[in-house]
């Protein structure tokens, strides 16, 4: 077999999208309106190379798990392509596989789940549960089945095997259960293993052990891993390449060393800064991104990360919702601000919730509204939002704030990695002075 590990592709996503239609409440379902679309994965292009560990890192709601499930055909793609290249040759388009073909794909691509206590059928013994994939695909039965189950259990270190065969999952500890889940995944001799947070629910004293087991299995069985995690520290140790996901997109991807040595995307930088380190000399950083990951059904305009970004530029896509957040932040920051008075001046903020490049404030006294905004600005003149203001003017008796047209930066090459940020890349919209 020719070995070209650098070039041999196992799987490849091109502009892959997985969108879900959300069902609204009872009323909206009745009226047929308000159905929302969640872009769980939104135009992701990524390659998985044979024998590597690709880490997909992100917070909950970033789409990392959906990406992993799409690789098994468990999450139906709504756009783009996702191809699988088996080592025996040929190419399979996962997005168009159906029925028996799709089920057969799962002898090649397998999955390890986050919660080992939930991933095993509680009413099957370990022997039944681990061997069931072979029964499903009619690969082995009888003595052969038993032999292969024993081999798989030994492989994952569940020995002496006799102590585990007739046990039920509830009799096992967390680490043992995860070993059993891994045994079930490798018994089909797959080529790719999607590991969805395989250690995050385990006690810290066994996490390293399970990761070590997975590394050993990879080397012994020639596996390729898609390692999904929210934990950058384990990704750093475990992965060859890392993709950082935010709100359905990859915002930075590259070799692990480069990403960790020189994180470029502000989100990556923030994640790295936020990891609590058991190091007595370090303190919790103060300049953390504010807020939380936004609603994927109503993503921010421009770059998805801009509302939280500490180094956002004028072209990042400022909009009406950011102005609301800014006002709210202003009311939180200082105890002396007269919230009731200012609130009645600016009026109802709900109009700002509709994403628009021009924010129109409801307050009727335009001069007073302008005063409030000036005060907010004076409080923190360095706030990146102000750079994005193109015009503050009056229209129809209301104050309008118009923002600069934002850009949604694509992934671009920058120093050995790819980054989706207006500050980086060949034709960066807002080149960083430092880069």
């Amino acid at each position, binding site marked *: 077999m020719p070995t070209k590990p650098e070039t041999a592709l196992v799987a490849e996503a091109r502009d892959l999208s997985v969108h879900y239609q959300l069902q609204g409440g009872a009323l909206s379902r009745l009226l047929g309106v308000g159905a929302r679309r969640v872009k769980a994965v939104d135009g992701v292009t990524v390659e998985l190379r044979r024998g590597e560990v690709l880490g997909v890192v992100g917070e909950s709601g970033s789409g990392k798990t959906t990406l992993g499930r799409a690789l098994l055909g468990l999450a139906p793609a709504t756009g783009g392509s996702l191809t699988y290249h088996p080592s025996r040759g040929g190419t399979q388009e996962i997005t168009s596989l159906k029925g028996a073909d799709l089920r057969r794909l799962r002898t090649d691509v397998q999955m390890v789940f986050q919660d080992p206590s939930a991933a095993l059928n*509680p009413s099957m013994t370990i022997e039944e549960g681990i061997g*069931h*994939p072979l029964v*499903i695909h009619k690969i082995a039965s009888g003595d052969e089945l038993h032999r292969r189950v024993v081999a798989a259990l030994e492989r994952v270190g569940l020995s002496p095997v006799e102590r585990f065969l007739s046990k039920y999952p509830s009799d096992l500890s967390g680490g043992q259960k995860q070993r059993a*889940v891994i045994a079930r995944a490798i018994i089909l001799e797959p080529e790719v293993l999607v590991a969805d947070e395989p250690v995050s629910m385990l006690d810290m004293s066994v996490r390293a052990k399970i990761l070590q087991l997975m590394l050993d299995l990879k080397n012994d069985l020639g596996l390729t891993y898609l390692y999904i995690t929210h934990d950058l520290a384990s990704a750093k140790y475990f992965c060859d390449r890392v993709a950082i996901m935010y709100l359905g997109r990859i915002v930075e991807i590259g070799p692990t060393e480069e990403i960790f040595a020189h994180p470029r995307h502000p989100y990556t930088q923030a994640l790295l800064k936020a990891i609590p380190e058991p190091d007595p000399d370090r303190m919790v950083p103060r300049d953390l991104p504010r807020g939380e990951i936004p609603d994927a059904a109503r993503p921010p305009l421009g770059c998805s990360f801009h509302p939280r970004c500490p180094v956002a530029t004028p072209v990042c896509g400022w909009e009406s919702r950011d102005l609301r957040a800014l006002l709210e932040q202003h009311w939180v920051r200082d105890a002396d601000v007269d919230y009731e008075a200012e609130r009645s001046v600016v009026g109802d903020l709900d109009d700002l919730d509709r994403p628009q490049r021009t924010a129109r404030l409801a307050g009727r006294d335009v001069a007073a509204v302008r005063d409030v905004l000036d005060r907010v600005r004076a409080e923190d003149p360095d706030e990146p939002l102000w750079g994005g203001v193109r015009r503050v003017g009056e229209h129809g008796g209301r104050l309008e704030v118009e923002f600069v047209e934002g850009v949604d930066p694509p992934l671009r090459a920058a120093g050995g990695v790819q980054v989706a940020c207006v500050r980086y890349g060949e034709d960066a919209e807002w080149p960083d002075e430092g880069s």
Partner: protein
Amino acid sequence: MRRTLTTIWHTRGLARYLLLAGVLLTAAFVVLAVFAPWIAPYDFAQNSTEAGERLPKLAPPSGTHWLGTNDQFYDIWSRVVWGARTALQVVLLSVLLSALVGVPLGLASGFTGGWLDRVLVFLMDALYSFPSLLLAIVFSFLLRSAVGGGVLAAALALTAVYIPQYFRVVRNTTVSAREATYVEAARALGARPFTIMRKYLFGNVVQSVPVIGTLNAADALGTLAALGFLGLGIQPTEAAEWGYDLSRALDDTSAGVWWPALFPGLAIILLITALTLVGEGLNETLNPALRRRRLQQVSFAPLSREGGAR
């Protein structure tokens, strides 16, 4: 299964006594039913001795007729014994049949979802919202022309009444179990939907079925007796039935003839109680929400007095 039995065996406290009393009482009726030909001195529709001598009418309990005789010259003890056989046959048959239909239907409906689920849920809810006796009357009318007025007809009528109960419980547990990671895992293993239902869902959703079964059995017995009482159940020529006997005996009670009504009525009450006890006992034992472990009182040992870090 083995674990369930162990759990039942190790139950303590009130639940254990409920269960034990219920099981013993039910077992007594089962013995009556199984050995009816040997226990009952007469056949269920026998109004004369083997010698051709007619039995007395409305004879009070005595040495020859322990529980007396009724207005049809039948020996009441024999009728009660044969009635146990009828009751258990009907109840067993109807519970088995309704579980056999309701469980797979609920499983398929809950797992597949979509329009099939909606239609089935609508249908079953409609059936469920009818009073069970009314429904049983309608079905026994419908079935009488098709299968006659015997044990089978009564069982089928009751089956139709109780299917929705199994359906609802199994369907609802399936809907929540469908979202479990191990079902997703089964899909990820490449299992077909049928395999997922059979191997991954079935074992985890049927756990409540035995409890519903025994509770339904008690309910079914009441409905059967009510049907018989109204004259719509098993025809007197087909088998002995407590409800029918009770209704016939009612007129005579005003004349002070209490025994033809008392004993069938007592049998109905006892068997319903027995089955309810078993059901409730099982529920207490198997339902983790109701199960209360018996805790041992904590008594502190003296301090070891070497202590930990301060």
